[in-house]
């Protein structure tokens, strides 16, 4: 039986395949879709010598009815059979993400076998076609590897959320909260040079000098399959910290120095498991969250001695605590008033309070969340102060 698995009708040489690494989707005229494929050149990035001076990938854009039929339409100029089995990212323009068409189209394409659920999803400010063409990282030439790496940077840094098709379907079908999608752009606009903290941007606002114009920062907020707003990098990071499951760990952050105005202290944050207590009442849920953070101070530019002086340490702890709580309450207010939902996955904890599934559905968590009474407490522990102890006195 196994012998037959090689298949006669389905056999195809690897050479006959064109591996699409990135797919871009834009709104086209007359309700059609403008699809962009970045087809990787398999010769680039291998150790064998390149025969000819070929570009690293071929980018092709055209109008089509939907994503799946566009695969066959690509044969107008691409000689090989397209396959999405190694596609690593789908890039959607902001305009398309804000339309009603977006989610039904994404759900429908999942019926196709080739679309895998772990393809990353990125929303970009401009057209996806432009974005894909503008993005040329200088040494990560294989596009699929690049997108795979950069979208997984979220796990270390937290400025962008983890968004892939699997989670898109999950969170949208559940309809219990907001879904955060990576936000990126290659066109800088409104660059901010006066900023309070390192994450206070949305993609495009960072003033940088680089061959690669790509900026991936912040997130697009989706509700019920449609994009309704944006969050800055800091706010995205906070949303990830407030979630029940510890995934984003090991964040580097800065806090204002309590004793010297204008100076910042940077620290590495390691999360513990959040304690989320939810009490359900008829009108609104009462949510109490305790977030344990373990800090490891990495630099004290103000040279104030926080290390050996116990009082100053306490002062530092309380100031960090107050600042985090202030930022969090601002974010929560924003989600309650502006977005009408929560991206913190607290609905997963609320599920435990119900016995029957229909009771939980009837409670209508997103609606009730808008009036919820929320308190967040941070439990800060400073674990170590890096290599030096007392800052030297000049």
């Amino acid at each position, binding site marked *: *039986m196994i012998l037959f698995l090689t298949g006669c*009708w389905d056999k195809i040489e690897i050479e006959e395949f064109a591996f699409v690494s990135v797919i871009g989707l834009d709104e086209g005229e007359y309700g059609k879709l403008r699809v962009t494929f970045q087809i990787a050149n398999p010769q680039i990035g291998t150790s064998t010598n390149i025969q000819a001076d070929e570009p690293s990938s071929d980018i092709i854009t055209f109008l089509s009815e939907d994503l799946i039929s566009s695969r066959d339409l690509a044969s107008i100029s691409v000689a090989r059979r397209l396959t999405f089995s190694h596609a690593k990212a789908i890039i959607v323009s902001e305009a398309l993400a804000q339309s009603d068409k977006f989610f039904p189209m994404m759900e429908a394409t999942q019926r196709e*076998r080739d679309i*895998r659920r*772990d393809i990353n999803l990125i929303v970009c400010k401009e057209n996806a076609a432009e974005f894909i063409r503008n993005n040329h990282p200088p040494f990560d030439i294989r596009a699929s590897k690049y997108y795979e790496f950069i979208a997984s940077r979220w796990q270390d840094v937290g400025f962008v959320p983890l968004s892939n098709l699997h989670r898109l379907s999950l969170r949208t079908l*559940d309809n219990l909260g907001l879904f955060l999608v990576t936000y990126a752009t290659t066109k800088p606009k409104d660059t901010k040079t006066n900023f309070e903290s390192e994450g206070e941007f949305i993609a495009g606002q960072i003033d940088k000098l680089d061959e690669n114009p790509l900026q991936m920062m912040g997130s697009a907020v989706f509700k019920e399959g449609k994009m309704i707003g944006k969050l800055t990098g800091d706010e995205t990071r906070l949303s990830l910290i407030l979630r029940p499951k510890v995934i984003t760990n090991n964040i580097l952050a800065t806090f204002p120095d309590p004793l010297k105005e204008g100076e910042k202290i940077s620290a590495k944050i390691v999360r513990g498991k959040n304690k989320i207590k939810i009490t359900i009442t008829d009108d609104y849920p009462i949510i109490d969250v305790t977030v344990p953070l373990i800090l490891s101070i990495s630099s004290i530019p103000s040279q104030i001695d926080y290390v050996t002086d116990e009082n100053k340490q306490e002062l530092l702890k309380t100031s960090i605590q107050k600042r985090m709580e202030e930022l969090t309450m601002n974010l929560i207010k924003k989600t309650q008033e502006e977005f009408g939902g929560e991206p913190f996955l607290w609905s*997963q904890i609320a599920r435990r309070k*119900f016995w*029957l599934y229909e009771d939980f559905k009837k409670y209508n968590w997103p609606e009730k969340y808008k009036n919820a009474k929320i308190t967040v407490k941070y439990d800060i522990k400073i674990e170590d102060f890096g290599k030096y102890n007392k800052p030297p006195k000049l």
Partner: protein
Amino acid sequence: MIKKYDNKIGFREFFAIVFFAIGMKLTDTTPILLVKLGLNASWMIPIISGMIILVSFLFLLSLLKRYKNKSLIDIIYHLTGKFFGFFMILLLFLMVLEYLVVSTRDYADILNTLFYLRTPLKYLLIMLIVAAIYIAYKGLNIIGSLCWFTYPLIQLVFVFLILLSWEQLDFNYLFPLGGSGMRTILKEGVVHSSIVSEIILLSIFFPKVRSYKEYRNANLAGLGISVIFISIFMICFICTYGYLALSSITYPYQQITRLVSLGRFAKNMEAFFLGFWTIGVSVRFGAYFYAAATLGGSLLKIKNPKTLLPYLAIVVYILARLPENFTEYVFSVRKVWVTILWGYLLSLSPFLWTVAKLKGEYKT
């Protein structure tokens, strides 16, 4: 001491046969059938079904103990006479036949939809049936040994898959624990007890097993492990996809093999799991064909059931090609069959037991 070769199968082989008959059901659309009704608490349904059928099985055990060397077929004929016995066996035979037809179509569809898109369906069906007939032709001893040989392989693959998918699981999806309510869950557990009904069907092979004790232990162990695995996998499915997304997926097991990855390099793992799955499937169908042939043979009074195999193959092939697409089968034929048959299966052995008691067979 050299073991006497008595041409019978023992605990290990029969246990593996039971596991393949019941446990492999988690790899097709059976979980979806359950999820539609039990919502997110449907992982409890297989356990309930297992317990219900245990009751019926205990009656059967008592009967088999009484009649030392008779199989289920002989017992039915002995207790209910030629006429009624014929009908009861016919019903059993039709059950196995229906299950064969629907399952071969199901598995051929899985291969066609997910892996071999261009291969025409009839060739996939032919291959599956030919492989199964080849195995069935060898007889019960070979089937038993083959099952025992491949059982650890399949077991390891299942455990491996669960471990790989661990990080995708969100156990919060199991809540609200009640799902659709305890009453609905219990009702569905009873009505769907036919998913574990093979344990009753396989008693037609009782004389071939070395001893009553081995038969009893093999069945109980097989039933227990299969039910536990089906429940564990349903928990996996529910925790990865959540109830809502799960109800629109037709092949949850295959989808999970697509979602998992071993580190950063082995990303598309489904080919690996496909290999082992095919082995399990062919062995399983071999056992089913042999069971169907035995039942058919007793109906037609044929001494050697193997002669019936080619004809069975052709019948199954024709019937499996009949519907246009698979949903016709699952949502009409199988659903109707499953909901009618659970009564018959559950009551078969208690009924026989009562007849035996009334006839005074238990008075030594």
